[in-house]
């Protein structure tokens, strides 16, 4: 999924044109300081440019473009949090400035604040629906957030306009398979494969196998993808998942760690590594993984549930209870959450409530079984 994000990273940049006048010529006048900042920025002296922008903005705080450029310089220096602050200040003065909004979205994206990035990009796409890059980046955000349906809605019209775009096919295929529309997704895989073997196609096929719980089949697809492009973003996260589900947990852990070395915000690698570490009773690192996964997908039920389980393990029953009650109220059919909620109640000496949860679990499992039996008898 980073394919798109990496390609678009270059969008963040200077908004002002650079006259090319050094500070020494313009003395210490605000204009001279700004010119020097721009010159340093263009020359790649980012730390120097940041200092000069700050100096200038202390004197002329209302210059929107200078503030935006400060944001761009901070972003380039990897200081996304401060960049976000500067972009927001600039937008307070010019709320309709789409380039700044786009840069703010990129800063959020790079800071792994995907929800906020998506919110900004939704504004940009609403204003400029025909622009391809914001649409692709927003789709990538949706994929990272697990909001596959939104990605499908956004990408389908674009894919119809440009049917030979493999990157787009890949993103749409990922969303379709993630949404359970396996047959439609595999059609796109076939299209990608038409021009020869590709790692992306095998990754998608593997994801499709994973969603069907064919872990051995998924493993074979991921191995093929790795043979072609071992550095394909997200691949090691999925490969590790297939390994873990076929029982090779040491190799799975190595794969997750490899993915996270490239992209510390990869949801799949964080979530799955968290589960592995939880099994090894490495609760501290497991928690960090789930928290990172949750930061990527703030509404993710899986990460919220696993964090609640860790709270239970740590004796934080009240905290776990609150989280688990939210989970079961959102989805009363969630057997796992009911099971853990029973444990939380028992820990809190609320025996009757715990017993009710256990009774509910038995009812839900019986209903599930009855549905399976009814399906089999048809």
């Amino acid at each position, binding site marked *: 999924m980073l394919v798109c994000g990496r390609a678009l990273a270059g969008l963040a940049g200077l908004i002002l044109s650079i006259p090319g006048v050094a500070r020494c010529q313009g003395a210490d006048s605000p204009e001279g300081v700004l010119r020097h900042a721009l010159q340093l920025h263009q020359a790649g002296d980012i730390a120097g440019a940041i200092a000069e922008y700050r100096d200038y903005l202390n004197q002329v705080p209302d210059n929107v473009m200078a503030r935006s450029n400060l944001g761009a310089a901070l972003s380039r220096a990897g200081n996304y949090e401060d960049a976000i602050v500067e972009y927001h200040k600039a937008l307070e003065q010019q709320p309709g400035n789409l380039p700044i909004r786009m840069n703010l979205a990129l800063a959020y994206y790079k800071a792994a604040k995907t929800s906020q990035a998506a919110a900004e990009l939704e504004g940009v796409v609403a204003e400029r629906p025909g622009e391809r890059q914001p649409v692709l980046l927003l789709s990538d955000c949706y994929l990272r957030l697990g909001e596959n349906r939104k990605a499908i809605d956004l990408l389908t019209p674009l894919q119809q306009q440009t049917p030979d775009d493999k990157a787009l096919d890949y993103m749409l295929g990922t969303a379709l398979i993630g949404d359970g529309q396996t047959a439609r997704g595999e059609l796109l895989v076939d299209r990608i494969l038409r021009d020869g073997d590709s790692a992306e196609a095998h990754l998608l096929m593997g994801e499709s196998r994973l969603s069907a719980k064919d872990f051995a089949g998924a493993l074979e697809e991921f191995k093929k993808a790795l043979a072609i492009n071992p550095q394909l973003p997200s691949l090691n996260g999925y490969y590790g998942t297939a390994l*873990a589900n*076929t*029982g*090779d*947990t*040491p190799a799975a852990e190595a794969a997750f760690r490899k993915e996270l070395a490239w992209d510390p915000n990869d949801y799949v690698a964080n979530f799955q590594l968290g589960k592995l570490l939880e*099994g*090894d*009773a490495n609760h501290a690192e497991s928690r960090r993984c789930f928290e990172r996964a949750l930061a990527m997908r703030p509404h993710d039920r899986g990460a919220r549930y696993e964090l609640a389980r860790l709270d239970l*393990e*740590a*004796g934080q*029953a009240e905290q776990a209870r609150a989280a688990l009650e939210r989970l079961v109220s959102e989805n009363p059919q969630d*057997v*796992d959450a009911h*099971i*853990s909620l029973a*444990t939380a109640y*028992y*820990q809190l*000496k609320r*025996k009757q409530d*715990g*017993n009710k949860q*256990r009774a509910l*679990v*038995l009812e839900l*499992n*019986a209903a*599930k*079984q009855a549905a399976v039996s009814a399906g089999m008898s048809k």
Partner: protein
Amino acid sequence: MRWALLSLFFAPVVAAAADDSACAACHAREASRFRPTPMAQALQTLDRCDILKTHPDLSFQEGPYHTRITREGDRSIITVTSGAESFSVPILYALGQGKAGQTYVFQYDGAIYESRASFYNETGGLDLTIGDQGTTPHTMVEAAGRRMGPGEAANCFGCHSNGAVAGGILHLESVVPGVGCRSCHLQADKHAAAVRAGNVAAAKMPHLADLAAEETLELCGQCHRTWAQIARAGMHGPNTVRFQPYRLTNSKCYDVEDQRLRCTTCHDPHGQINTNLASYDAKCGACHSTALHTKVCSVAKENCVTCHMPKIDLPGAHHKFTDHQIRIVKAGAPYPN
């Protein structure tokens, strides 16, 4: 706090490669009573495997595959033949003492395999291993056994032996066959070291007899499966009868906080299973008695478990398992899930 403390017991089994002789030096009575129990014999080396010694040539036919387990000196070999082809591999360990049955594990191509054929006491011969029903082998190796992943193999040895698993990784070189002191008393090594050092304060360890019902079932359930594990798996039907903590939890008289009904109410963790069913009457009577003004049985006054904990015939297991879901059994009523 107690729950937090309890979580220490439930960490994966991590033990130094050692038998229980260090424990036996002080706790000789417990150790000597425990050694002959089925739990202590949960894993057997081939030289000590009575079943394979007394059954030197076992065979099993499954479709085109003919499986034989033959004795050669102190070891046994699984051989699968199909037409002109054959595959042979020595058995590494026998799992289970064989009261109900015994399954075998072997090593092949760097992995641990569970034998597809198991010995069943009732029939005195081989049949499909529980869990393999409904699957079809496609190769000689698959007909011999099912490849286990490293995690599954570690879990398997983690319960059937001690000292074999560290950090979730199986170390075959340090396997001590059977359940040992450390399997339940996870702080045993620390305790022994503190005793040797004369550090009385550090030698203290949790007293497992003080655990509440739910805590006890969680502890035993680490191998016999907890209620949560079975419920999460959505298991149903007579298959669940093998998982006693799950069934006991579903009993109407089970209370998470009440110590009067837990695994150790009836089973001495250091001793043999008591096969005199009437001996359990006193356990039931501790709660159900006219003197206590509690509900008593209107049908009989003895052999409670014969009716209230019926034996369930598990298809394919060639063994009747005691159902630990204590209940009033009604004629013709389906197995309660």
